[in-house]
Structures are given as C-alpha cells and as structure tokens.
C-alpha cells in the first residue's frame, strides 16, 4: 500500500508540474515554497539573459565542448508490470516501450535457495538469448515467475539499455562479471530489506554507454 501511495502522490506531483500555476500545487505547501517560487520567478526572468550572456561568451571563446556521452546515448524507455497468481508461483509480466531502436538486457533480483539470499540474475528470452532488440515505438514483453520468494522482499527489475548491442555485457564472460559486480555492489540481503540506491550501484557495473531503467516492487501476497 505504501508503494501505491507513493506512486499516486508521484502522479499528483506530475499533474502539478504539467498543469499547475503553482498556486494550488502540493509542493506550494512545503516549507520554503514561497522563497522557492520567488527564486523561480527571478530565474524565469534572469535565466534567459544569463544563458544568452554565457552563450555569447562561449561563442567568442570558441571552446571545444562536448555533450556527455551518456546523455547523448539515452533512449526513452518505459517499463510497466502486471501480476498474476498461478497455483504455485507468481507471474510478473513486464512490458516496456521504447521510442528509438536500442538493445536491452533484463536483470532481476530473486531469492536463491543456494545461499538463502537475494542474488542478481539475467533473464533469458524465449530464444535463449539474454539480449533483446527494442525497435522504435515497439514494445518488449517478458515474464518473470517467482516461486519461493518471501512476499516482503523488495524485487528489483532493471533494463540495461544501449544503442549498440556491443555495449551491453551479454557475452558469457562479460555477463558473469556483470552479475558478480552487482552481487558485490549490492550484497545479498535478508527478507524485508529494501535497497533504494540499487540503480546508482548498478551504474557502476556497466559501461558509460549503457543506462539503467529500474522497476522496484513488492510482490503481491498469494490470495
């Protein structure tokens, strides 16, 4: 329920960002909101002037500035989940939607009975590959079935996305190192633990041209 409330509040914040004039916005109720609003009004006036001045300065200096590679490579990808209960397992169906051609790997956390802990694993698609092609405007669907996971373990599914297949650690050696890096960066935890900083830690395990689309959730308890 907490996750649901967070998600709904996030939607309210987005409504305010998209449509609000700031008067009735929820964030206007925060301490210091009046000062922030004043700063924003000042910035909306002074910002363009400052930007023009900086641009003029840079044009005179003719510097060799480059856009950060990671920002230049980013492909918009969304991910959504629906859950279904089978007799012995919970099936989580994921659907992602990309707007440009890209490649993706699915990494997820799951309970491992070998160590009685949570470990990272790579999802294998129907053809046995760990790499999927996302076509512009198209979707990628995959399912993860959880069997023995305690329901209060926070699950984390990550899409590692890159424009070029070669940038993703999909070869056997590379994927093994990738998973090892994840397990070391995010040590296995006990049930009930939550790892809110997972995406940041995952970024340390992938090359610059790869970025991460995270999706965290708590599995619904069996009916």
């Amino acid at each position, binding site marked *: *329920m*907490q996750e*649901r*409330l*967070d*998600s*709904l*509040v*996030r*939607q*309210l*914040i*987005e*409504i305010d960002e*998209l*449509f609000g004039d700031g*008067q*009735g916005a*929820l*964030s206007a*109720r*925060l*301490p210091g909101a009046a000062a922030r609003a004043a700063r924003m009004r000042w910035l909306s006036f002074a910002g363009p002037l400052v930007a023009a001045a900086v641009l003029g300065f840079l044009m005179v200096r003719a510097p060799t500035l480059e856009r950060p590679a990671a920002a230049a490579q980013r492909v*918009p990808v*969304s991910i*959504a*989940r*629906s*859950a279904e209960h089978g007799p012995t397992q919970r099936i989580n169906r994921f*659907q992602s*939607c990309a*707007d*440009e051609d890209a490649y993706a790997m699915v990494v997820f956390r799951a309970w491992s009975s070998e160590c009685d802990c949570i470990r990272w694993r790579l999802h294998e698609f129907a053809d046995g590959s760990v790499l999927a092609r996302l*076509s512009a*405007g*198209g*979707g*990628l*669907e995959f399912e993860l079935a959880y069997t023995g996971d305690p329901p209060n373990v926070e699950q984390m599914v990550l899409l590692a996305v890159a424009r070029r297949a070669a940038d993703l650690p999909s070869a056997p050696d590379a994927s093994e190192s990738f998973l090892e890096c994840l397990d070391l960066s995010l040590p296995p935890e006990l049930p009930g633990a939550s790892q*809110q*900083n997972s995406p940041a830690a995952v970024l340390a395990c992938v090359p610059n041209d790869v970025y991460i689309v995270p999706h965290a959730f708590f599995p619904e308890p069996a009916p």
Partner: protein
Amino acid sequence: MRADRQSVNAPRASTAIDAAVAKGDHDAFHQRHARFAPGIRRFFLRRLATNVEMADELSQQTWAELWRVIEDRRFDPQRAAFSTLAYAIAGHVWLRHCRASSGRTESGELPQRPDPLDFAVALQQAELLHALRACVDRQSGPGALEPLERQVVLESAAGRTERELARRLGLSPSSVHARKAAAHKKLRRCLEAKGFGEESVEQISQRLE
C-alpha cells in the same frame, strides 16, 4: 488586497468553468483546451522525448477521448478536477499506445483504429487522485498531515531516500521512517473515509500497470 482577491477568485473561476464543461459547454471546453493542451503535450513529450509527431498525435487522441467523456456526461467536477481527469485520460492513451506498439504490423504501422478506452478506470483513477490531493492538502482537523509529514510524503514520492531526507531535515533516518509511516496511515484513513479503501486503491492501481 489584490493578492487576496486573486487567490480566492482563481479557484472559483476554475470550478465554474469545470461545471460548464461537465454540462457539455463547447466554449468552456475550448477554454480548458487552451489552458491544458500544453501540459498534455508535455506529458507525452516526457515519455517520447524527441518524437514530437507522436506526442501531438497522442495529445489529439487524449482531447478526443476527453470530449467523449464530456459528451457522455461522465465528468463530475465535484469528484475530480478537469486537470486530473485530463491527466488520467492521457495516462490511459499512453498505456494504449504502448500496448498497441507491441502489436505493430510487419510494415511497422500502428493499428488504424485504436482500441476504445476503458473510461470507468480512467474516471476511477481521476477520482482517487482528487481524493488523495484533498487528503494531502488538508491543513487542519483530525487526521490532517503535519507540515513535516507532508514534506516527507511529497519528497519521498519524488524519489528522495529516507537517508537523504534525514540529512536535509536534520532528523535520524528512523525518525523519517516513522514520520512517513504515520503520514501514510493518515492518508489511508482519509482515503477510506472518502470511499477508497485499501482494496479499491489496490484494484485501481493494478489496472493501471
């Protein structure tokens, strides 16, 4: 004096327009279009980044669907503001787009006629969001959020971790956690009093995934 007048009159004018829209008033609907169209477009551009053409197409679909809701007299401004309804419909148009994208034809074309939207779910979502806003926004009375609780709820929903919030607010992480739990409890009770028990919140949320 002028500031007081503006803050009192602005919501009233907005409510009056919403009431006229609910009755199918074309002019009021055009006013709403002029006011909210840029926001709807931004909603899709956030999700589609550089594909401006598709963002415009989905924005148009959203306005067409919104008009259908108005024509069917399903919009009740007492239960959801027009902006909240517009957001909910845009969300459903986006979900439909994502689902249709995975069913593209071999030539890469999207289906000509999109599936009809499930208005009931969109309306339920808008009403739930409207109720939650009232709960978060309530300034006084039993069950109202304290300013610090409101801040924790808003900032943690916006992505701040409890540790970050603790640093910002000068509290211990456990204290932030306790504040958040207390705030969520109040919000759950408030929603329940407005007819949205845990089960219905869960149901509506699941249908949006």
